[in-house]
């Protein structure tokens, strides 16, 4: 340390002196002199020549053929296990119906029109409940993401409410709204609105400060910045939030229909349970899964199209 003391001393002596020192002394790198000679050499780890474990290399792309094979496997394996379990009669068919039984139960319900009727009823509730939830949460979240004041007003409340499980509102909703459609739709709204608000606000807050600044210097007013910058920038994120929360809406529509309903996929499940028709329950579950998957894929495509500018 003795070697560096003079410079430090000079630097501490005041700006005027420091200026003189700077002009005459070359810049020296910091570090202790000497002592390193006594250190033992760092051990080197022996590496086996990389026989690339392609599939397990972190973050590395895999061949398209293998990717599709793995995807297929992820669906085929549980199906195969299911088939094996029911074919070997290891599990009673009452508890685990065979895939073919589920298929024919599904076809049966489709032929009788029950399945379409119930699907339509559930989809209608989703459209209404999720739609209402989005209609409330997107403007609210947009405001929270744009204005700190709106964030300060709504964030504590929304942050608290989202921790209340929507299903816990069912008894209250029945007392308040009766047994018809309103409590079911309201349950969906409650299940969707808080999360979607906060996720929308997060997406809106991601607009870079510099982009806003540059817009103002190009002459944009506050309203124009919101319309022409904040909205297009956050749109993909808003759609992403909707994609996550429409899945929640599907969960809640089934929950809502388990109680006091006369139609819908959830109702069909409860009804099938009463008659121990597990094949029908399975068939309805498959339908719910397929609809969910379709929605997810559609919203993902929409998001990719809207956000095609993203790097």
């Amino acid at each position: 340390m003795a070697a560096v003391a003079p410079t430090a001393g000079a630097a501490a002596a005041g700006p005027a002196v420091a200026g003189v020192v700077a002009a005459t002394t070359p810049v020296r790198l910091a570090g202790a002199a000497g002592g390193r000679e006594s250190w033992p050499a760092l051990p080197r780890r022996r590496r086996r020549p990389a026989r690339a474990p392609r599939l397990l290399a972190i973050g590395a792309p895999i061949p398209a053929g293998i990717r599709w094979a793995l995807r297929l496997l992820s669906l085929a394996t549980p199906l195969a296990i299911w088939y094996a379990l029911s074919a070997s009669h290891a599990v009673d068919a009452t508890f685990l119906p065979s895939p073919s039984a589920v298929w024919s139960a599904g076809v049966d319900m489709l032929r009788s029109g029950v399945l379409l009727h119930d699907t339509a009823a559930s989809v209608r509730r989703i459209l209404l409940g999720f739609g209402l939830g989005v209609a409330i949460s997107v403007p609210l979240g947009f405001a929270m993401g744009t204005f700190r004041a709106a964030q300060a007003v709504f964030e504590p409340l929304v942050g608290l409410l989202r921790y209340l499980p929507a299903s816990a509102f069912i008894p209250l909703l029945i007392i308040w709204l009766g047994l018809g459609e309103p409590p079911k739709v309201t349950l969906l709204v409650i299940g969707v609105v808080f999360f979607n608000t906060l996720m929308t606000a997060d997406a809106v807050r991601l607009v870079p400060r510099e982009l806003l600044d540059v817009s103002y210097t190009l002459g944009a007013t506050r309203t124009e910045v919101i319309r022409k910058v904040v909205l297009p920038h956050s749109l993909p994120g808003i759609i992403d939030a909707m994609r996550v929360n429409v899945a929640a809406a599907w969960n809640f529509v089934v929950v809502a229909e388990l109680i006091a309903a006369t139609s819908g996929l959830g109702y069909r499940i409860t009804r099938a349970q009463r008659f121990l028709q597990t094949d029908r329950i399975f068939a309805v579950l498959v339908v719910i899964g397929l609809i969910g998957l379709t929605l997810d894929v559609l919203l993902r495509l929409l998001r990719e199209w809207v956000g095609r500018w993203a790097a």
Partner: protein
Amino acid sequence: MTDRAAAGPVLRLHGVVMDFGAGGRAVRVLDSVDLALDRGEFVCLVGASGSGKSTLLSLIAGLQRPTAGQIVLNGQPIAGPGPDRGLVFQTGSLFPWRTVAANVAFGLELLPIPRAERNRRVQWYLAETGLAELAGSLPKQLSGGQRQRVAIARALAGEPEVLLLDEPFGALDVQTKEDMQVFIRDVWRDTGTTVLMVTHDVEEAVLLGQRVVVLSCDPGRIATEMPVPLPADRTLDLRRTPEFLAIRQTVEDLVRAQHRKHLAGWPAAVTGAG
């Protein structure tokens, strides 16, 4: 001074002071900065980190208000940001969902001018900045240098009184940076705009500026202004001439002295007792 220097300065700063924070904990970033830019002038502002040079640009752009002092553009005190002071940041800040042409058109779309007139202007600036081929590309398809060209074209389309460049080539590789230095001189010559460019690269400042202003640190003050008496037609080879090297060395010493002073304000442990 070129023959473009018309009557009176286009931009004038009077005793501009900027504090961050308030009360006892306020930190003075800029202190009594006086500066005047003549119309058509190319001025480079150099200073070590912490000299508040970016803050100064943001004040001129109107994105922040000075704690004290006045900034006057064409005799009018500025009131907030506007297209009469075009700003370009270090990394483009392009609208990623807009094509190159649409980025350049952004400011013009806000004005009541016919579409044909808007397109004509956009085409002109795209051609001037060598972007005509890329008009339909998205920012993600561009290189760093191309993005900066778009940002400059976008700022110029608003016909600013002053073009404010905040370390515009700081994130580019050396070869691209050299291209851009030639480019910005050409644009300046062709458009006759006034340029105030912030940089920490002294060589760049001397190569481009007709005048170099050195900011001091803690707080930022104007330490020195010096004219750069080099020919108007500047090429990259100019950097090897003795005249250039002499000016560059003088400015470098000034900046380094300010940087030392800045470090002196820190405890030795932080600076590594440099």
